């Protein structure tokens, strides 16, 4: 069997075991053996890529708004973490909502300012910030009051989002530490800080509701 004949049958046998003359050729030919080994490595490497990225909090915020507008979601449940006032009580929430909105905007602006300063500082220091400097939720010391005001489910979601965004920041910082000229990592870091500000902002909205 030639290499060309072997390759012709490869799409059919690559995901199984080679048998008969194919197995003999595979054993004898180092080129084909290397090819099969590479293709299998690519295939198994691909399986590890699944579900390692996360959408920004903006996606859920948009979904929530749409679901509410379409009347698909209603009252807060006992499970906690419900962010929308029930229709029944909506009138009562109007004035509370107005005040909350003003407070949320103010808090958001303050947080963004705070985050922006931290972000700028971290980006500027890209290569000098120790890896993991902001990579855990425990050092987000301003969270205590925020967490205290949240339902358990909302808190769990907030912590999960924060952990995820901190992990992104950590990755970008680690990359920048190794390669300070990596513009992609710098942009990624800025984006991650932006997302972190958004996580805070959403959390503030929630705790105020």
């Amino acid at each position, binding site marked *: 069997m030639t*290499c*060309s004949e072997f*390759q012709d049958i*490869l*799409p*059919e046998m*690559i995901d199984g075991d080679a048998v008969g003359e194919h197995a003999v050729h595979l054993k004898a030919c*180092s*080129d*084909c053996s*290397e*090819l099969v*080994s*590479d*293709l*299998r*490595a*690519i*295939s198994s*490497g*691909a*399986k*590890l*890529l*699944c*579900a*390692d*990225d*996360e*959408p*920004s909090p*903006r*996606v*859920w915020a*948009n*979904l*929530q708004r*749409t*679901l*509410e507008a*379409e009347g*698909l*979601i*209603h*009252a*807060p*449940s*006992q*499970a*906690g*973490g*419900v*962010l*929308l006032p029930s229709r029944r009580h909506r009138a009562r929430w109007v004035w509370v909502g107005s005040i909350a909105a003003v407070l949320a905007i103010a808090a958001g602006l303050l947080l963004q300012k705070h985050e922006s300063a931290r972000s700028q500082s971290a980006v500027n220091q890209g290569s000098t910030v120790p890896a993991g400097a902001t990579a855990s939720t425990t050092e987000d010391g301003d969270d205590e009051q925020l967490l205290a005001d949240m*339902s*358990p*489910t909302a808190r*769990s*979601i907030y912590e*999960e989002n924060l952990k995820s965004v901190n992990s992104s920041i950590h990755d970008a910082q680690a990359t920048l530490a190794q390669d300070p000229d990596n513009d992609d990592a710098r942009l990624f870091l800025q984006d991650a800080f932006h997302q972190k500000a958004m996580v805070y902002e959403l959390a503030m909205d929630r705790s105020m509701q």
Partner: protein
Amino acid sequence: MTGASKKSGEKLSEAEAIERAKQGDAAAFEVLYNLHKRRVYSLCLRMTTNTAEAEDLTQEAFLQLFRKIGTFRGESAFSTWLHRMAVNVVLMQLRKKGLQVVPLDDENEGEEETPKKDYGAQDNVLAGSLDRLQLKNAIDRLPPGYRSIFVLHDVEGFEHNEIAEMVGCSIGNSKSQLHKARMKLRELLKTSRAEKAIKP
């Protein structure tokens, strides 16, 4: 314990969240979203290679899911149901953009689409040294038709018969395109590795 009698703070299981979501419980929707957002978003991102577009498609997939959740009867796994929906949303979007989703039949393919039969050198073996970032970048550089099949089969774990049905091609075509996608990836990975080796 029924859903209604659950105490505040208890985490919902997926089955409980589905039942509550059918009643319009906002928290249940959020629980389901958080359980599956990574997988759906990753699929959208791999298929489109664009974060903004992937987020829009993730949103659309979940929206379709939540609109139809009342019809979910549990015959298949919820994740399978959602995942199918997400794939359909992405494929529809790719078709709208005029990108090739259905792989071309072998006889219709252009010369440049056919990966070279490059056996490579012994000292450039990929197995054992393949890093995720390199592989991600190489997948992003695949032509859309190859990428769809590769992502659906090797990343997402769909079988060829499922892919053929979703994409609208024959099983043989799906197998053949998958093989070509892997060959193209091998070529891209080796080229990228060789370029790195040359860099001072």
